[in-house]
């Protein structure tokens, strides 16, 4: 195979890797004016992300919620939607998980299952109004999901402070009871068995989308609405399903930070331990080419940046928030098809 052939076949992977590179270079350019040294920061970042086995576990712990919120966005794209409501749906999931896991004692095993399912259900319920508004009134999901995100922010803070607060500790909610905690997979890391549930969910969505009739209809509505109409596909049902699956994923992502993430096992009253996971998922989904399985790998990569970012903050003084800025730059780069046209022209010459 000649080089151009390889590029054509592996183009999605190649594109993602090149845009990540572009993002990292742009991130370095953002460090220099503020007196940071990228040559010190980036090695620290990569050492922090993959330096030891426990670091790799930690990276996976960071990746867990991201692969789920990425599914929310990716399923939306597959149905022709720009669903950016994962953030709010995830908050509701976190609230649901906290309420069941912290307040209602149930037998071990059952408790975990009920808390997880309730969180997913709340996430899906929060995703339904934008779906219905779109179907009934043609309200664009970009506006409706963002508004529901902000309503969810204030609603979740209210519930967390008024109903779920730990007595004597205003800054966070009651911690999950031990019977509702996912087992830690390796001592010294925060990775729990919730990652297995997350992976199963991603694979499940993949099988649903590419292996079932309903999933095929969902994708058809996204790819070719005209054809879908001719084939007699009910596009309203497809939209509701798409939002609902996204909500389930986001709800699970929220739960994963409460009942699947030591050491707090609870929600901060500021929502600080879950904020931006939903928006990060948009970038992760795009890097993963809006594919549930691609999203898993992209989430691991982004999780590595996030975990390594903490190490970078500690050793090079660069705020770990820069990683999120880099994510945004990667998204912009991925939006520009001309970049690939230029690169492949250069390589063919």
């Amino acid at each position: 195979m000649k080089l151009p052939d390889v590029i054509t076949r592996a183009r999605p992977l190649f594109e993602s890797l090149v845009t990540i590179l572009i993002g990292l270079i742009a991130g370095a350019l953002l460090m220099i004016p503020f007196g940071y040294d990228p040559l010190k920061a980036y090695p620290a970042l990569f050492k922090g992300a993959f330096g030891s086995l426990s670091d790799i576990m930690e990276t996976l712990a960071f990746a867990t919620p991201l692969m789920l919120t990425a599914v929310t966005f990716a399923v939306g794209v597959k149905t022709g939607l720009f669903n950016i409501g994962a953030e709010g749906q995830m908050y509701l999931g976190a609230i649901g998980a906290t309420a069941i896991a912290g307040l209602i004692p149930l037998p071990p095993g059952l408790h975990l299952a009920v808390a997880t399912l309730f969180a997913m259900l709340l996430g899906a319920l929060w995703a339904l109004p934008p779906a219905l508004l779109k179907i009934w009134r043609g309200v664009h999901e970009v506006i409706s999901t963002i508004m529901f995100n902000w309503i969810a922010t204030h609603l979740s803070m209210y519930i967390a402070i008024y109903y779920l607060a730990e007595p004597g500790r205003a800054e966070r909610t009651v911690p999950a009871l031990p019977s509702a905690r996912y087992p830690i997979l390796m001592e010294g890391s925060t990775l729990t068995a919730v990652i297995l549930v997350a992976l199963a969910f991603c694979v499940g969505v993949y099988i649903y989308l590419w292996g079932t009739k309903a999933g095929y209809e969902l994708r058809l509505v996204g790819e070719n609405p005209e054809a879908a109409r001719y084939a007699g596909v009910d596009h309203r049902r497809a939209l509701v399903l798409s939002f609902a699956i996204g909500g389930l994923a986001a709800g699970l992502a929220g739960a994963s930070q409460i009942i699947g993430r030591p050491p707090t096992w609870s929600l901060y009253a500021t929502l600080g331990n879950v904020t931006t996971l939903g928006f990060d998922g948009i970038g992760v989904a795009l890097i993963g080419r809006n594919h549930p399985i691609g999203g898993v790998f992209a989430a691991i990569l982004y999780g590595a940046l996030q975990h390594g970012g903490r190490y970078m903050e500690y050793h090079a003084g660069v705020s770990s928030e820069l990683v999120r800025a880099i994510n945004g730059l990667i998204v912009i780069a991925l939006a520009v098809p001309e970049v690939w046209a230029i690169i492949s022209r250069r390589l063919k010459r």
Partner: protein
Amino acid sequence: MKFLSRLSGERGFWIIIVLILIALAVLGIEKAGLKPISLLEAALLAMTPLALTAVGECINEKAGVINIGLEGILLITAAVGVWGAELFGNGITGLLVGMVTGAFIGFLFGLVSVYGRADQVVAGMGINIFALGFVPYLLMAIWAFPGIHMFRRELMVRPMYTFFGRLSPVTAAAIVFTILAHILLHKTVLGFRIRAAGEKPEAADVAGVRIDRIRILTSTIGGALCGLGGAFLPLAWFGGVTKEMAAGRGFIALACVVFAGLEPLLALAAAFIFGFTEGFGYSVAITPGVKEVIPFYFVNMIPYITTLLVVTLFIGRRRFPAASGQPYSRE
């Protein structure tokens, strides 16, 4: 009179109804013991960033460019505006720094949309995500404090004292810009070309209009107005900058644009309606007897619920430029 005939359309009718309701509400509030002047002041403050952002985006979308990254531009220019104000020791200069920063981001977005043929919705979302990380990074890098920065009171842009209460000069500027945008779009050759670029780029191109330059220009104007709105938030309103400062205003402004059907004057009216409900929330929240009963979290939801209600009830058969969001290039 052309504007009056446009106002008599269905959308204008609803706007007039809502404005009358607001006037009645103000009168009722006076009876209830609230100060209508302070309510109007709060409403105009909340209106200003929405109006600036929405009017800029109206011009931009008329030319066929959709920028959903306004939220991110508001956030970035809020932080950069404060930085500029501290650097030059002057709030007005801070506003200009915010405006120039917004124009620069809009210019880059224009380049990416026109020459990069980008998916504008994805690129716009990229700006939002970038801002979510860049602003906290900037707060740490410049002021070494996480998430929030309060600046000296002297840097605040002072309001003007008018016969009906305090009025920020930026609010006055926003109203002037709105009228200028209306004149630009409907009375000038450039405005005609802008509309042609959004409606029938092929025809405009044949007629010798440089679609690429028009779209980059409108994207830059949109960014500049949005940047002024962003710098307004800390420098003429809140007195500090936080990493959640924009609080969905970029998207509420998008709702204004959609609601107004891309007409700047209607966008200003829509921004006033949204600003009024936000200001109404603040006024009610601090009223004795109410603040004990209704948690502040619910008052905070008012702007978002209003936006949802308005887009649900009033947006029916709106029409957008035929080529909106589509990259254009000669075949």
